[in-house]
């Protein structure tokens, strides 16, 4: 557990970067600090491993005041990942990963084994270990950065916008793998980002900071979307927050209807319906066709409309609604975990399911700051 | 000061020949390094070869090069041509790389736009690439100018007259006035050439001074 206790940072030029921050990052959870630039999120993060010293207040790690710990020792026990990875350009990938174990004086063989193991763990092929950072893509460098932070198996990790310098597709991939890794490792993580979507996707708990370094609200992502504490938070979490909040609500039992299908390469039967779902031999949905256009011949690949997204049964309401809205037939395709068709659902059916679910009214995370509770009460 | 007052005429003459020995090679060197630099840019494979070979010439100490020149050119040791050629070699060695780098610093999209509008080979070089490379080339030229002025004074050792004579004579006869005059005059000449090149570069690149342009 990391605890910020009334922490303030005032720089010599008089700017206050962080103002009286009190916050707890619970053990084994991801706490995301998010906010616009100038909100002091990076400064807060860097005070944990004392890259920056607080002006007032204290930060404790599992009850121990970090200000009293040896600086280098403290840092070696905390994984640190930064935006541009900050790999050492003169060292190979494996040597980069082994940095902290070497500082800790592990023996060579053990360092090598551990580095190779981590290389694999972050999803990089073994042959990349002998390369230099300049030979890797941005995404690969970032993976190495994560591996380096994990090398000595620190219980705590600090991550400063680790995925913001890569393109959106790679970013999403890295985020997914990061969550999978965290499932296995259960580290106590403080994660800084300016991207609210990333915060909501990754955080077990999200702390929104405002310019000037004050804490606006801290809550679980779903709660944050449903109950922003004030206009600043509401504005920051964005306009379509109602829609995005649906991603935290698991689909209840939706009234799925059976769908008439045609297998690709066969002739459609009858012309009754305007849209017909095309599946493959394993009943996995491929797309929609208009039977009138196909006529009497077999359905070809070129006939397919692939516009619709596919929702997973038991997935989130957001997925179900999106499947319905994006389908040309207005019927959202729902599949099971193996990708086989289960049925379809209409948008109004998803909406009534939404109306039947409760909004998250209770924040299970640690402290709900001031206004949040009141606002929740007002709206109820 | 006394020494200068009674010898200002000599100092003037020596300054002129110093300017000649340092300046002419500067112009010749520039004229030669443009095609060389262009070659290095045009055929990327030749870049390393051109830069390495000119760089190697640069490593030869000046006094040695002055003395070797008659062997290569078949001239007499006292012939000022030795100095002119040696200085041109240094200038080319220094500028070829600068010209190549300067030409390569021209953004790709600019070159492509020029080609698309029908600029071909040489016209593109003189109409688009060289003008845009002026700031980089001018910076190299300034380094070459200052270094040329300093090196030329060494030619006094092989008997070619210029401001270096004041240094040599001042030292041999222990005349501080003469020695210091030589140092100061050489320094001033270097600064003068430097300023002229800087002004020339500014005049050739008016777009750099417009508000919003690169500083």
């Amino acid at each position, binding site marked *: 557990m990391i605890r910020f206790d009334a922490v303030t940072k005032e720089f010599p030029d008089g700017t206050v970067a962080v103002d009286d921050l009190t916050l707890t990052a619970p053990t084994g959870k991801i706490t995301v600090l998010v906010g616009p630039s100038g909100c002091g999120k990076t400064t807060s993060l860097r005070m944990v491993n004392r*890259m920056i010293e607080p002006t007032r207040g204290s930060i404790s790690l599992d009850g121990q005041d970090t200000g009293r710990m040896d600086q*280098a*020792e403290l*840092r*070696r026990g905390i994984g*640190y990942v*930064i935006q541009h*990875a*900050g*790999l*050492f*350009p*003169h*060292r*190979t990938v494996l040597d980069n990963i082994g*940095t*902290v174990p070497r*500082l800790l004086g592990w023996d060579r063989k053990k360092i090598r084994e551990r580095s190779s193991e981590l290389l694999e763990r972050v999803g990089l*092929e073994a042959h990349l270990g002998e390369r*230099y950072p*300049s*030979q*890797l*893509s*941005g*995404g690969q460098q970032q993976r190495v950065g994560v591996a380096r932070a994990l090398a000595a198996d620190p219980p705590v990790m600090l991550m400063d916008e680790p995925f913001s310098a*890569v*393109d959106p597709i*790679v970013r999403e991939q890295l985020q997914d793998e990061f969550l999978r890794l965290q499932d296995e490792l259960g580290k106590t993580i403080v994660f800084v980002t300016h991207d609210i979507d990333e915060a909501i996707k990754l955080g077990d708990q999200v702390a929104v900071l405002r310019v000037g370094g004050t804490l606006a609200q801290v809550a679980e992502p779903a709660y944050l979307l449903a109950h922003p504490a004030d206009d600043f938070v509401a504005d920051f979490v964005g306009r379509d927050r109602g829609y995005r909040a649906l991603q935290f609500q698991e689909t209840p039992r939706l009234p799925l209807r059976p769908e008439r299908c045609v297998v690709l390469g066969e002739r459609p039967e009858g012309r009754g319906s305007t849209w017909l779902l095309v599946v493959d031999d394993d009943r996995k949905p491929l797309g929609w066709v208009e039977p009138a256009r196909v006529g009497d011949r077999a359905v070809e690949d070129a006939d397919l409309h692939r516009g619709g997204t596919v929702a997973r049964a038991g997935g989130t309401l957001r997925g179900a609604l999106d499947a319905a809205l994006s389908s040309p037939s207005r019927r959202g395709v729902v599949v099971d975990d193996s990708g086989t068709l289960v049925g379809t659902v209409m948008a109004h059916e998803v909406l009534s399911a939404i109306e039947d679910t409760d909004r998250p009214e209770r924040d299970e995370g640690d402290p709900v700051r001031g206004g949040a509770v009141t606002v929740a009460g007002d709206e109820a | 000061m006394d020494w200068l007052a009674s010898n200002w005429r000599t100092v003037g003459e020596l300054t002129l020949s110093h300017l000649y020995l340092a300046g002419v090679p500067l112009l010749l060197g520039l004229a030669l390094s443009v095609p060389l630099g262009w070659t290095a840019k045009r055929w990327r494979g030749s870049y390393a070869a051109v830069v390495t070979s000119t760089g*190697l010439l640069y490593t*030869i*100490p*000046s*006094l*040695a090069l*002055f*003395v*070797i020149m*008659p*062997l290569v050119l078949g001239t007499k040791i006292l012939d000022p041509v030795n100095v002119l050629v040696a200085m041109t070699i240094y200038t080319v060695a*220094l500028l070829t790389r*600068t010209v190549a780098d300067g030409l390569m610093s021209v953004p790709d999209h600019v070159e492509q736009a020029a080609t698309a509008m029908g600029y071909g080979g040489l016209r593109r070089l003189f109409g688009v690439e060289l003008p845009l490379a002026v700031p980089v080339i001018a910076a190299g030229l300034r*380094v070459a100018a*200052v*270094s040329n002025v*300093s*090196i030329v*004074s*060494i030619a006094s*050792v092989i008997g070619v007259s210029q401001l*270096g004579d004041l*240094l040599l004579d*001042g*030292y041999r006869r222990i005349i501080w006035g003469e*020695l210091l005059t*030589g*140092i100061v005059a*050489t*320094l001033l000449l270097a*600064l003068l050439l430097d300023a002229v090149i800087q002004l020339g570069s500014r005049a050739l690149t008016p777009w750099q001074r417009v508000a919003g342009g690169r500083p």
Partner: protein
Amino acid sequence: MIASLLDWFLDPANWSGEDGIPARLFEHLWYSALAVGLGLVVALPLGLWVGHSGRGRWVVSVANSARAVPTLGLLFAVALWVGPAFRGDLAYLVPSTLVLVLLALPPLLAGTYAGVEAVDPAARDAAQGVGMTGWQVLRQVELPCALPLLLSGVRTAVLQVVATTTIAALIGLGGLGRYLIDGIALGDYPRAAGGALLVALLAVVLEGMLALLQRKVVSPGLSGRAVGRSRNDDDAGTGKETAQEPVDLRAPA
């Protein structure tokens, strides 16, 4: 002319004794090494400090602008000024070495300073963040990363010093410059040209050896020699060149 030059090289008298080629070569190398060594003692810590702390940049600018002073003038002025204070060999060794060190300083300082300053701030930040002490950051990250530019500075300084040592024969120093100066003074062209060829050869060989050394000690990750990227690149974002081309630091004498 070529024939007489060849005769000079083939004359056994020129290969032995105090004025023999091996002795002069050794002197030349010794003076040069002394000057570059002393220069490094001053420039390395100073340049590292300026590059690391960002303070005292004026030191580098002052050293740089001092390069416009003509080498010959500097040599003579220092010889006249400092020389008389010493006796015997020291009377020319001290002023020569002083000038040689002064000339070695600007490229050494500029190279060290530029090298440290060019270290990726993210790498430095990460080094501190993983718990390296200040000394470890300097030793394990900053110095190796600064090496390409630092060694370029050393190369330039060595060439500058080797060239100037030749001219220092004018104020009585030994070394290969003796052949040139004495040859010219005596009108003995073969001797002067022989000396000139030796000096040129020495400069080129030293340059080549230093280039090899640079290849050997600079990490392939920095020199841009490690080429070729993974086939399964998951993005194409960072193809940036890491080869650090040295700034031209030279001014030959």
